């Protein structure tokens, strides 16, 4: 293919278009890449070195200048739709359909990064206004902040070339931390819906700055409503028909969990509020608003002097707007047995004995100081402890020792117990952080060996998730890392750092310090 290397003559200076004969000849060209030889250490102006350099450069330029030539029959034809930022297939899709693209309204679409990658692989020819787009056009038209940035595409292409299945990350299709915590099966219905997007609902851009685009989508949505009104009406029952009872069940499960989730948050905040009040709350509940020592309760059973009419109670003790007049108790007294209890002498003695022997709990001063059951229990525990030789003075204040020496536990656990600063993990407290725009997960990555039985409708758990940044960007702080981790769940988040042509992958991982204690 020596004649393919262009000479620098005027006529061909800008021409990188092949003639029909060149095209024809290119059908049988080799697909081998020349191996690079061992590099030299230092240039020494020798002819040998110069020759080797020249040869390397020649190989390099012949590789670089080679144009993509494909048989028309092997090419999938597609059109670029700038308003949707998608590419619509015009001819049947190839093998790539198993892992790429989505269908909507009975048509097949590719996302711009997928289309560009396939163009680069020589599988796809994209037309715009009936003219084919070059690779350059693809880069310039498809890559933007509305779709995928150049750096993100570099990472996408790098991973695709390695064989990974790479999809855009859609935070809304991920289960919430709560659902994950309960280990609920993820609604398959939801994933299906995401795949079979309406044409109007353009794919979520990986970057958020897309106000202009959003405007246009809403416009189109209205337009679409006009067009597909009938369809839209037909859709819901159809989808009900297709969902199996199982998925229906799952769906009810998810809806109920969302309800519960709402309930739960309400409940936790309530608890938090309680906790916040905690210290000053309990004493108020302990001592009642009413001082019973000063309120006299009439003893209707007493045989002493009691007028047959009870005076009306203090109005401040009554619930508002309730007026109680003077009460005639004579009729009540008639119904009560007012006879004196007569005990035999034997019984009397026994009673006396019992009273003497019995230690009345209520007489205990400390017990009397207890305001509720919990405090009494505490008191009992304290007394128990004193009896068993735990120094009480260490335990009766707010600050107590970290460990109760009477409790026997393994050394490892003990060390754990007395470690004042606990180690934390990445996910701890992450759900309480608010989202940030700075760091976003771009892609879900699935391993190459899963390609054979990969299903777009049910991709399963990704191998990892990708964030893309450059060396000029700041290092993500703990907050960002926690956020990403909580967004990703149990799938590791990998940060792809793009340095011009180079891509390096880094992961922040929880590290448990080893403990050299064997119980």
């Amino acid at each position, binding site marked *: 293919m020596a004649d393919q290397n*262009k000479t*620098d003559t005027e006529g061909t*200076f*800008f*021409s*990188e*278009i*092949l003639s*029909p*004969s060149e*095209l*024809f000849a*290119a059908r049988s060209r080799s*697909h*081998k*890449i020349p191996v690079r030889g061992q*590099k030299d250490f*230092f*240039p020494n102006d020798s002819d040998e070195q110069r020759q080797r*350099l020249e040869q*390397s*450069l020649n190989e*390099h*330029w012949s*590789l*670089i200048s080679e*144009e*993509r*030539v*494909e*048989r*028309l*029959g*092997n090419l999938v034809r597609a059109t670029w739709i700038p308003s949707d930022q998608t590419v619509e297939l015009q001819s049947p899709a190839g093998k790539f359909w198993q892992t790429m693209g989505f269908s909507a309204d009975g048509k097949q679409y590719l996302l711009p990064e997928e289309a560009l*990658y396939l163009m*680069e*692989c*020589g599988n796809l020819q994209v037309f*715009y206004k*009936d*003219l*084919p787009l*070059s*690779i*350059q056009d693809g*880069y*310039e038209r498809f*890559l933007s*902040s509305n779709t995928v*940035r*150049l*750096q993100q595409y*570099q990472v996408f*292409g*790098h991973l695709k*070339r390695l064989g990974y299945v790479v999809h855009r990350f859609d935070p809304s299709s991920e289960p919430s931390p709560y659902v994950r915590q309960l280990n609920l099966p993820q609604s398959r219905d939801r994933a299906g819906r995401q795949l079979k997007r309406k044409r109007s609902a353009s794919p979520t851009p990986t970057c958020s700055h897309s106000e202009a685009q959003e405007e246009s989508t809403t416009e189109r949505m209205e337009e679409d409503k006009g067009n597909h009104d009938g369809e839209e009406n037909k859709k819901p029952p159809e989808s009900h028909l297709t969902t199996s009872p199982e998925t229906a069940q799952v769906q009810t499960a998810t809806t109920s969990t969302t309800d519960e989730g709402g309930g739960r948050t309400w409940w936790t905040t309530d608890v938090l509020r309680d906790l916040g009040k905690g210290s000053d709350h309990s004493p108020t509940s302990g001592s009642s608003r009413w001082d019973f020592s000063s309120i006299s309760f009439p003893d209707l059973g007493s045989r002493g002097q009691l007028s047959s009419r009870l005076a009306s109670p203090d109005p401040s003790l009554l619930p508002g707007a309730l007026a109680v007049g003077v009460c005639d108790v004579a009729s009540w007294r008639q119904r009560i047995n007012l006879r004196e209890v007569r005990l035999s002498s034997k019984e009397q003695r026994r009673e006396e004995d019992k009273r003497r022997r019995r230690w009345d709990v209520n007489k205990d001063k400390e017990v009397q100081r207890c305001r509720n059951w919990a405090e009494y229990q505490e008191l009992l525990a304290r007394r128990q402890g004193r009896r068993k030789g735990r120094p009480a003075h260490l335990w009766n204040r707010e600050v107590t020792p970290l460990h109760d020496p009477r409790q026997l536990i393994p050394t490892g656990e003990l060390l754990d117990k007395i470690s004042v600063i606990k180690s934390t993990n990445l996910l701890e407290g992450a759900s309480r952080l608010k989202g940030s725009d700075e760091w976003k997960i771009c892609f879900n990555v699935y391993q190459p060996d899963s390609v054979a039985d990969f299903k777009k409708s049910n991709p399963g758990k990704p191998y990892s998730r990708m964030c893309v940044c450059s060396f000029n960007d700041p290092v993500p702080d703990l907050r960002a890392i926690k956020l990403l981790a909580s967004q990703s769940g149990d799938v590791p988040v990998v940060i792809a750092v793009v*340095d*011009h*042509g*180079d891509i390096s992958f880094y992961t922040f991982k929880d590290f448990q310090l080893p403990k050299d204690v064997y119980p």
Partner: protein
Amino acid sequence: MDEPPCREEPPACEEEEDMSLSNVVGLSLCDSAPLLWRVQDLKTVRFQGLVGALLGSLPRTPRQNGRLGRPLLLLPEEERLLSEHQAAAALPASNQDGVGEEICQWVEKYREEQQRSFAEQSVLALEDRKSALLQAMTSSHTGSHAGLGTSAKALQGRLEALDRSFSFPRSAMAVQLSTVRAGLTYCPKDRAFLQADWPIRAQYNPHCDIRYQVFRDLSGRGFYLTSAGKFGGDFLVYPGDPLRFHAHFIAVCLSLDEAVSLLDLLSVARLGSNVKKTVLLCSPGPDGGVRYTSLQWSGMV
């Protein structure tokens, strides 16, 4: 060290006009990154000692990362060097954004070309088949002298039959998926519009400025530089073309009055020795030159 030619010459000289024009490379922005697309431009910048980074899949074997193809991404320093030397121009925008008749003309032209290409390729395919047949027949009959006459006749018959029956399906036609935007070839006049007017895009960051001064100095001394993010430095410095030579230095750009933490210094030095490269601390001086300092571990035992 090779001193790459035509580097330090001021590009405005009268007699250099022609030379510098052919050295003007066409840049285009993709998501604000400067990309080179045309092979000739790639050669031009490489000739000037600028390496850049290839980003695209290689047409020959697209599904690998070992060797990549066009486009070539320039470092910001490379871009600035080119624009300061007035050696960069914006590639013309696509003509597919035109409207109405203009587009119709292009489409018409494209269809004609496809038709012509198909016709030519079917002729070529027929010839190809014929020569293959000829070769097969003659090679199988060279042994037997007796049947020469009959075989010639048979051959003639086969060739005629082939002529009649041969059809070249459209799906077998080879088409080119152009790397570079085709607009320029359709309209050679566009070349005249290529003016070396690439603006120096603002870099307010003082560190960028330091990087640029170091880059310009090292590149002026004939070194080839690439980005050294994965080595924890600013540039990897090659003594010759990176195709044939290993990098010798990791350049770390610092301003002269910048305080450096000892730990940082030790970590880059340690890294450098681990990858068998010398770490250069590069600081542009007030006189326009650049101070280079290397750190060496001296083993006093």
